[in-house]
């Protein structure tokens, strides 16, 4: 008979083994999908690695893709630590992009760059935070399940974006395409590596990682988050304000997702459009989990998954493998990762022929 037995503690080796196995299985499942297209998966993965990490330029593109993942996952870690499942980084990212774009589109191009960018950063964070406060309030005061409310708000955010892009925010010179007018130079984040698209957003990401790390490890807020996440009864018993902490944590999480949206439009796309890659909001969930909610470890996984995405752009062109393959690999990784949670908490026990009772029984 095989049965599960509760583990007393989780070994560190398991914490390394499970993400590794998840990634390998994700890649294998991706390989099956590639094989179905009749292409040699080994060659595809070779090309993917080359496309992601081989040259200065390709690696810079990996960093470009990693930047929003670093920002968003840092924020998600804060709320995930308290067992609040924010699936809404997607929508918070869009709102951040919209709020910051307002100033790029409607304010004068002659405002000094420092002022313009500061305003846009704040606006992006406020936009994301406002979108995140809604489910936080619903949860804190009416116990509305946050998975559903954050997820549904994603669609609303997307339709707000579509509404603006087909409506008043569309550039009259765009020939009917749903694009805003290009951001003037004063609304573009400066690049920090010449001849690449790596911009100030990466620095924001690194700062965010250390701020979150500090918050969680050193502050009273971080302590309360840990206690609430692990045992809300004990938190109430100790007089902690659970509702207040949910709201603060969601403000942080939403603000960082919003900032990621701002970085994307201001640092990469240089205009607002419908396609601004909000899927980073979902990929960042995988990043946070692969890292077991450690913000510093998460930034390395962000580079890994960012590489997967930027490499996939290459193989799409050179090998005719659709970009969607990255989605398959990512989801397979998350699937295996979450499925393996059971091994973190339980161990498999095989008892062969062990008699658990005495005496002979008469069966019915």
């Amino acid at each position, binding site marked *: 008979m095989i049965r599960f037995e509760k583990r*007393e503690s989780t070994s560190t080796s398991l914490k390394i083994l499970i993400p590794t196995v998840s990634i390998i299985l994700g890649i294998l499942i991706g390989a099956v999908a590639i094989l179905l297209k009749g292409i040699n998966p080994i060659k595809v993965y070779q090309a993917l690695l080359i496309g992601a990490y081989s040259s200065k330029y390709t690696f810079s593109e990996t960093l470009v893709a990693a930047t929003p993942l670093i920002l968003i996952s840092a924020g998600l870690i804060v709320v995930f630590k308290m067992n609040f499942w924010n699936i809404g980084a997607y929508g918070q990212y869009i709102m951040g992009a919209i709020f910051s774009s307002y100033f790029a589109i409607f304010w004068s191009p002659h405002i000094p760059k420092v002022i313009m960018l500061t305003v846009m950063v704040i606006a992006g964070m406020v936009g994301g935070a406002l979108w995140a406060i809604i489910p936080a309030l619903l949860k804190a005061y009416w116990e509305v399940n946050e998975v559903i409310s954050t997820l549904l708000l994603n669609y609303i955010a997307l339709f707000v974006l579509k509404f603006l892009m087909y409506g008043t925010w569309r550039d009259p010179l765009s020939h009917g395409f749903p694009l805003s007018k290009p951001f003037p130079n004063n609304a573009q984040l400066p690049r920090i590596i010449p001849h690449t698209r790596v911009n100030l957003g990466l620095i924001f990401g690194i700062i965010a990682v250390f701020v979150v790390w500090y918050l969680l490890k050193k502050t*009273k807020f971080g*302590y309360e988050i840990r206690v609430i996440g692990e045992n809300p*009864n004990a938190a109430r*018993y*100790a*007089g902690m304000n659970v509702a207040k902490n949910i709201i603060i944590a969601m403000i942080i999480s939403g603000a960082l997702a919003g900032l990621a949206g701002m970085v994307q439009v201001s640092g990469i796309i240089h205009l607002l459009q419908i396609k601004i890659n909000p899927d980073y909001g979902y990929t960042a969930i995988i990043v946070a989990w692969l890292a077991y909610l450690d913000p510093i470890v998460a930034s390395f996984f962000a580079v890994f998954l960012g590489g997967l995405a930027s490499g996939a752009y290459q193989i799409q062109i050179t090998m005719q493998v659709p970009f969607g393959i990255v989605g398959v690999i990512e989801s397979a990784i998350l699937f295996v990762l979450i499925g393996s949670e059971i091994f973190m908490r339980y161990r498999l026990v095989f008892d062969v022929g062990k008699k*658990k*009772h005495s005496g002979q029984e*008469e069966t019915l």
Partner: protein
Amino acid sequence: MAEYILQARNITKKFPGVLANDHINFDLKKGEIHTILGENGAGKSTLMNILDGIYYPNEGEIYINGKKANIRSPFDSMRYGIGMIHQHFMLVDTLTVLENVILGLKDQSFFINKKQIADKIIEISDKYKFDLKPFAKIWQLSVGEQQRVEIVKMLFRGADILILDEPTAVLTPQESEALFEILKKMKSEGKSIIFISHKLNEVMEISDRITVLRKGKVIGTVNKEETNPVELAKMMVGREVLFRLQRKPLERGEEVLKVENVEAYNDRGIKVLNKIGFTVHKGEIFGLAGVAGNGQKELAQVITGLRKATSGKVFLLGKDITNQHPLVIANSGTNYIPPDRLKVGLIPNLSSIDNAILRRYRKNPIGSGILVNYKKAREYTESLIEKFNIMVPRIDAPVKLLSGGNMQKLLLAREISENPALLIAVHPTRGLDIGATEFIRKKLLEVRDSGMAVLLISEDLDEILMISDRIGVIYEGRITGIMDAKDADVHKIGLLMAGSTEEESATVH
């Protein structure tokens, strides 16, 4: 042996560290109501779960109608005609009575003949005067009606033996009366009933025979006519010679806690505190005895601000703290050892440090500004570990790796180190081994000697008698008597625990 419908022989069930059932023998006659009486942790529920197939015993046999039965699951027990009604109902709120009754039955065809089933439910309902409508939704029913649905569910499945696990715990007195009528009616129809309880007055009203369990063993089986509540109480709590721990003579000081006419409701919306009032003074241990579920847990929650009092007042050192925020109450000098260390008192997955500073992280020097000074926190934790002799694998290891005794020591250390005016300790030694139990009791006496007021709430009568200075007895949310510990004895307290007032118990003496 046809007289017996069910016989359990030498049932033994071990759990890690606990012998829950120790060679238990138990017989159920056809058409009788047989009560299993015992304190919490005596092994009643374990035995019933074995009969219902939820647990499988390590040793022993069960015979149904004289034939050996192999019960491995509730499905098996159903086939033997055993139906268990759990204390917490196993009903789906959003479904109808009918849907709940047939839930899990395997012999239904794909298209369910609701008319036929409804008729059968009404037939059962009429026979026992249940007054149930098959198409009513469960959430629309009162608790008493929901319980009747559970009974119908079992009768529908052809149960001849009904096990009711503390059925009155969730009922109002009127609903309990109605239940007893139903049970008597079922008895007259030839059903056999096992009734689990620790409320002596109920037991005396409903039972034909009574089997008393204590610490996993059968103490005896008696006919109702040949016994009385005093004897039952004695059997239930034991007759060991009690010794009192060393202590300084009582220096009863000023009044620290005053509870005045407090009323409160439990999570199920039943009133569990009924104008309760008492005081606890500086330098004394006030032991509150009582059978589980008479409002003890809720009382502690009301005093500490974790539950709202609907009327009445709580004073701490003369200051009104009724319904204040838990933090305000804690800061005005109350600390609390909750009954369930893993669910409330501690955070099992966090380290000893994180657990030790739960009351201190806001205050200097561990808390400074918005930060927690983990260096100071570690030093503080180390000092607690040393002072209270707590065994931890590593100071950073999650506290769930500690033994129960060491967990409780950490919790106690954390709470009494705040040096409060009032310490509330609820079941402080439940589930602990003898060494840890003794350590905790000595510590409670130590803080009492140092002038703290201690409110000790416990179901362990030995514990209450051993360390209290005064003893109060709680029954159905009110105090049935308060006495000096030196005037107390098991008989008197047992009677008060069963609901008789102090005058009544005095006349029995």
